[in-house]
């Protein structure tokens, strides 16, 4: 299955926020306008990609079949509707995680960890506490007043991205 980088394009004043996701071709379909969690079939989220690649040791990929949950709330205006979605639970190097995102209109306003189980491994706690929040920080930093970016080593986790993609899928992106 083709993987592509997720590209989130935000602009500061002037241009309408552009939010583009290069996701896999398979899209999950959801009951429109429903505020109840939709039981979505595994679909594109349940992949068999390796949990890590490149120079890290390969681990068996066994994404749990927890369906992506979808909640919808916010104003009637499509421009400012606030929606959240939680991605499927996926294995990452030190345990299981799932990602939650919040989208306001066409802009991602929050990326966070909805679920994390790293079995209390002290090293993975160091990584979880240090690295994953950096990824969150980067997703939010466009709204910081005094800086325009954050540079920090990030935990480029296949599991994180996989769960993020499934959350995005559930928002119909």
């Amino acid at each position, binding site marked *: 299955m083709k993987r592509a980088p997720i590209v989130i394009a935000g602009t500061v004043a002037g241009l309408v926020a552009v939010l583009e996701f290069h996701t896999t071709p398979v899209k999950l379909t959801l009951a429109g306008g429903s505020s109840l969690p939709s039981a979505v079939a595994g679909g594109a989220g349940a992949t068999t990609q390796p949990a*890590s690649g*490149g120079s890290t040791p390969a681990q068996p990929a066994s994404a749990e079949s927890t369906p992506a949950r979808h909640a919808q709330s916010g104003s009637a205006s499509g421009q400012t509707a606030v929606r959240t979605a939680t991605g499927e639970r996926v294995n990452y190097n030190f345990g299981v995680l799932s990602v939650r995102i919040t989208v306001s209109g066409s802009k991602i306003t929050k990326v966070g960890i909805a679920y994390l189980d790293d079995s209390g491994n002290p090293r993975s706690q160091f990584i979880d506490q240090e690295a994953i929040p950096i990824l969150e920080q980067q997703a939010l930093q466009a709204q910081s007043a*005094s800086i325009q970016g954050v*540079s*920090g*080593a990030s935990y480029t986790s296949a599991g994180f*991205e996989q769960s993020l993609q499934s959350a995005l899928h559930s928002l119909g992106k």
Partner: protein
Amino acid sequence: MGTVITIDVYPAPGADDSSTADLRRRLDRARMQLQRADDVFSTWRQDSPVSRLRRGEITAVQAPPEVADVMSACEVARRLSAGWFDPWAMPGGFDPTGYVKGWAAQRAVAALDGPAMHGALVNAAGDIASVGGQPSGDAFRIGIADPGEPRRLAAIVELTGCIATSGTYERGGHLIDPHSGSPAARVASASVIGPDLGLADALATAVAVAGIEGLDLVEPLAGYEALVIGWDGGQHSTRQFPFASATGATAGR
């Protein structure tokens, strides 16, 4: 590449329809650069040219021309880093991922560069390529995450060009000894600023492992500056590392 990439554009005011359309076209070209880099270099995709190269199914000559370019650049980076950055020493063979992330972001920002714009930033998971600056005319101010306290910033820099940061916990613990639990790297993180993000990326990786001695690799390189943050939070940098002036947190050296 498993990387979340953000693109921020600061358009000049008074953009008319044709300027806006031109900006959108440049944004599309920037995205295509990133897509192309992923297509060619992703080691997660079994059928990418680099994956096939690693398996010996093709040679560098048979691969897309970008592969040879990146290999040459990696050879330069290996020499400049005195071997602390060595993509040929990766398990499974040549793995340029530590260079390509920055290289791709740099090409994306170059595609974005053009008229009707104060500046733009492409942030590939903490590696940032920039053109221009803030609408005020000031340089971009970029925070460097505190490796010990991720929601805090250890430093703020005034950025011209690019910045890459490498930490000991990236890429699934590649730089950590899984048996002892002790980090193999001597410092918690290293940041390198310079005009070429691919090289800055490689140097940051090298300095993160080499530690304070790694600063000696960067000091002689014109246009490149580096900062290391130790496990105790202590900071050391090359002489002209562009710490931002007074407003906000500027940690002492």
